[in-house]
């Protein structure tokens, strides 16, 4: 009896999983093999949309940016989040306040985040102007206007927003580390920096993985922020796939290319995440076997 109720209770999730995440996705991806323009039209054209997609220099830049932005963003968030968590964990005063401050960017919507930062990074009104006014005439901080640096401005902003949550997760992980092990390290004379670089990080693996899921999902969906901050500019230097897909889908009436782009995004996700999941499975199997 209960088993049937359990099945029933999982039905919504199953419907969401299979209906929305598999079904709707399959439908959308099917469109990438059709000639759809503004409206879906099931006239099969093979890989034509993909050819168009890969011919687009904007798409190429988008994909490059995704990896550049994604890598730097994830690494920076993890590192910064970890460092802050470690520092906060040193029994500092005002921990609660600091935690809240670090987390607060998360409360702002991405559109707002982009707007504020585009101001802040604006060389004529923002930080650069401010520092120059202080007398440092040669101070340059104009990432937004430099096509080579603009994507890093996006990264900076995203890091600003994403670090807090990573810090919280890491802090939680640190609080779970066996206190006796730390004591043992101290008795063994292991200096702190070694503790925090060699011993602790492997222990935080679950937290790091959780953060990774969170951050990676954010990277894939990095759309609002780029729109609000740079709109993909200067030129096409800060284009990202999500922006490309959205724009083709809703503004340019090019559903075929848009869905082809989405398909490639998912493919790359599977290529990146697949081995990770596999590795996790094997590792957990091995651990089970060992116990």
């Amino acid at each position, binding site marked *: 009896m209960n088993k049937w109720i359990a099945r029933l209770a999982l039905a919504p999730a199953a419907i969401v999983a299979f209906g929305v995440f598999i079904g709707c996705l399959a439908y959308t991806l099917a469109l990438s093999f059709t000639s759809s323009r503004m409206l879906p039209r099931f006239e099969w054209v093979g890989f034509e949309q993909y050819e168009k997609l890969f011919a687009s220099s904007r798409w190429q830049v988008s994909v490059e940016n995704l990896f550049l932005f994604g890598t730097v963003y994830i690494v920076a968030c993890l590192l910064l989040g970890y460092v802050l968590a470690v520092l906060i964990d040193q029994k500092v005063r005002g921990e609660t306040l600091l935690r809240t401050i670090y987390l607060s960017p998360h409360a702002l919507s991405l559109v707002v985040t982009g707007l504020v930062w585009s101001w802040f990074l604006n060389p004529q009104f923002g930080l650069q102007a401010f520092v120059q006014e202080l007398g440092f005439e040669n101070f340059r901080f104009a990432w937004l206007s430099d096509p080579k640096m603009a994507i890093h401005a996006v990264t900076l902003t995203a890091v600003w927003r994403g670090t807090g949550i990573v810090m919280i997760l890491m802090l939680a992980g640190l609080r779970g580390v066996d206190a*006796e*092990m730390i004591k043992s390290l*101290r*008795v*063994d004379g*292991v200096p702190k920096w070694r503790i925090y670089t060699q011993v602790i990080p492997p222990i935080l693996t679950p937290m790091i993985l959780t953060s990774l899921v969170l951050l990676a999902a954010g990277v894939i969906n990095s759309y609002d922020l780029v729109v609000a901050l740079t709109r993909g500019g200067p030129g096409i230097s800060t284009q990202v796939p999500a922006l490309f897909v959205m724009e083709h889908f809703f503004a340019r009436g090019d559903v075929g290319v848009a869905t082809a782009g989405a398909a490639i995004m998912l493919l790359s996700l599977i290529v990146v995440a697949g081995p990770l999941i596999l590795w996790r499975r094997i590792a957990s199997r091995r651990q089970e076997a060992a116990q």
Partner: protein
Amino acid sequence: MADLEIRGVSVAYGALTVLEELNLTVPDEEFLVLLGPSGCGKSTLLNAIAGLQDISTGQVVIGGKNVTWAEPSARGIAMVFQSYALYPRMSVYRNLAYSLQVARLPRAEIEDRVHRAAEMLQITELLERKPAMLSGGQRQRVAIGRALVRDASVFLFDEPLSNLDAQLRVELRVEIKRLHRELKRTMIYVTHDQVEAMTLADKIAVLKGGEIQQLGTPDAIYDTPANLFVAGFVGAPAMNFLSGTVQSAGPDLVVDVRGTQLALPKYARTAAPVAGQKVVLGIRPERLNLDNRLVGADCRLTVDVDVQESLGSEKVIWARYQGQQIAIKTPVDAPAVTDGAPLELNFSSANVSLFDADTETRL
């Protein structure tokens, strides 16, 4: 290689004072066990010795050197923890070698020391494994090994065996004892397991509420407990207590325990009992005999049998005397008794303990 002295050490967590003005001296090469109930401050004391816990007053002196303000790693100590505290992602070898690597010892020396320790603990074949792939007993050995390689002069153990199951505990207990004999180092060992305490210790310090209740050899602690707490805490089943009154305090001491007059000619007094004084008379379960013939039994008590438990190697009989529960431990081959039937017990007045009912100290 070093004796240890604790001089007037106090430790407080915020408003809660856990240790107050504690003094303790452990001579070189002695095996001292700290025994006490949960929360009495055993770990706190150990941490204070190791320098893992700031102390508010007092001094810690190791090998004649005041190390009160020295770093844990500079005190010449090694420590083993209850939760093993192994470094989870490092192999057993690296677990053992890590502190030496950090100290930049030459490679050859590290290998040598690790292998020596591993052999001593019989974990040589495990050196390549990760901690997750070890059984509980093996983990504990690695933890001990980590202390061994450091070649410290004082070893501190914080309930190192309490996470293991009975069989393993017995095994490792013997191993630790052997280590002590071979290494000839000062060892301080925290436990709340009496069997461990009794078997390992040269001296036992019984702690309660941050104060040392008694410091003495295992036999002294077991046979002549300094107060009611020590008497009740050490031994299982616990010492039987009968409340009574001193009838006569002269050369022939007589105590009335709810109607039965017990003469205690062989009792070795520590303090002078007074006639009329309320006392508690204690007698260990294994000192109560069913066997009439026993030599030296000069006291007698009749009780009502409640239940019997056979432990295989011995039997425990639970009985009542005037509403007070009495445990009797007998060999398996002792004469059979009947549940519910009265039972006559003999014991020697040399084996009782007498406590003042108010101050709870030994008389």
